[in-house]
């Protein structure tokens, strides 16, 4: 990664002000994403999802985000108006959520959603949009795209829905894809298929990918680089293939606390959280 990074984040904070106190979900983190697959791993409450949303400036009140720098290939995202930001979302940065059921419009046919998306972003004719939508569904390995286009979100399975989401998100040709637990709601066998599709498309198009997950083992095998988050901080940054060289006790703990096939019946090592990690 010698080229300039696709996304540069400096000193990012996300705070939630509630009646009793202010909760700091993300606490001054900074990282860059190139045309690579970057994994962000952490347990619930680590701030990993909030980081993904903050990049898109999707933190809703009472939450608020601040950053010293949030730069997408030369565009200062912090300086954009809400309107400018809407143009960035979808067109330059796309986001895939955990459950496609909530991301797809339940009362609109899938085909129409795809076509509308294309027409809004690319401004192509209806016929051309339909042709591209079909091609995209084929690209995410949907066997019978015509049938899926006619269906509604609730009529497709989780894995199929997630493929449709990926197709929709990639249609506008974004530079960066943020995937927040994209396969956690799927069965393990389907999970790998979806990952394979995402992997291939991201690589073919030279996109950047931010892969947010709680599953260290999956992230380690899927991504190039891994950020480990704990209590709103990045505690360690690692090359994915060097995970076993992790130095931080939290990363080590996360690695070893998972049961392994053939790992025996001895008690699993548990994490002893130290207050110092959160500092």
């Amino acid at each position: 990664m010698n080229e300039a990074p696709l996304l540069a984040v400096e000193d990012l904070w996300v705070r939630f002000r509630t009646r009793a106190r202010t909760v700091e979900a993300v606490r001054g983190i900074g990282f860059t994403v190139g045309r690579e697959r970057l994994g962000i791993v952490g347990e619930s409450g680590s701030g990993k999802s909030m980081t993904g949303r903050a990049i898109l400036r999707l933190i809703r009140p009472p939450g608020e985000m601040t950053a010293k720098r949030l730069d997408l290939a030369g565009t200062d995202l912090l300086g954009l108006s809400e309107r400018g930001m809407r143009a960035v979302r979808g067109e330059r940065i796309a986001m895939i959520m955990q459950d496609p059921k909530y991301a797809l419009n339940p009362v609109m046919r899938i085909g129409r959603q795809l076509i509308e998306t294309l027409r809004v972003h690319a401004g192509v004719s209806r016929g051309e949009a339909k042709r591209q939508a079909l091609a995209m569904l084929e690209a995410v390995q949907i066997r019978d795209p015509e049938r899926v286009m006619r269906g509604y979100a609730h009529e497709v399975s989780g894995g199929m829905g997630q493929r449709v989401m990926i197709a929709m998100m990639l249609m506008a040709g974004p530079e960066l894809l943020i995937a927040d637990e994209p396969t956690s709601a799927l069965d393990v066998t389907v999970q790998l298929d979806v990952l394979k599709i995402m992997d291939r498309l991201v690589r073919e198009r030279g996109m950047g990918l931010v892969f947010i997950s709680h599953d260290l083992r999956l992230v380690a095998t899927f991504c190039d680089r891994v950020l480990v988050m704990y209590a709103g901080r990045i505690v360690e940054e690692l090359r994915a293939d060097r995970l076993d060289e992790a130095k931080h006790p939290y990363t080590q703990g996360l690695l070893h606390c998972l049961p392994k096939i053939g790992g025996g019946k001895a008690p699993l090592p548990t994490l002893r959280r130290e207050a110092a990690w959160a500092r």
Partner: protein
Amino acid sequence: MGALIEVRDLNVVFGKGRQRVHAVKDVSFAVERGGSFGLVGESGSGKSTVLRAICGLAPIAGGQVLLDGAPVPHGIAFARRVQMVFQDPYASLHPRHTIDRVLAEPIAIHGLGDGEDRIERALDEVGLGSAFRFRYPHQLSGGQRQRVAIARALLLEPEVLLLDEPTSALDASVQAEVLNLLARLRAEKGLTYLLVSHDLAVVDHMCERLLVMQHGAAVERLEAAALEAHRVDTEYARTLLRASEGYRR
């Protein structure tokens, strides 16, 4: 050596006519006393439905469930012998009941004595301590809630514990703690476990034997040792095994 819990040709059917769903098809297995048996499969495999059928939460359309060689008793007598821990600790505790109330309920139903002592002891056993006793579920973390659910299940001193994905809603480090707790309790109390999970590694860690299920039917019966040696016969079990190792480029 007779099995403590035995399921013979179990069939579960939901709905009628066009909406009829045959959720479990001719599933049989047996768990000996003190054993730990795993049911593995993906969503829709019917693994959880088997558990629910055993405790009467799903309609049995055919086959038998035997406890100690006799058909399972119903109601109060059943509760003393078989208990269940649910998947989602956020849904299995009543949002308006304090932990104290949750734990006091089985004592009241069964008219057990020395409730105070039992509650304190149950909380101690699952590593929570009495500071948690008067909190509401929303004041606890997922792992703490699951401990409460385990404490509730153990209050009646059952012989069999049905575990329905007990850790799938929890963080990895919390999962390790809860699995350790379950393993310890089983050793201490000589419990018999029937564990349902989508995670082969969890089942391998917790169980001596397991049954792989797909689309409501049994696919393959395995010893944990065979699984560890990757000696599996069916394609589906092999797929699951591969998937459990993470993504391969």
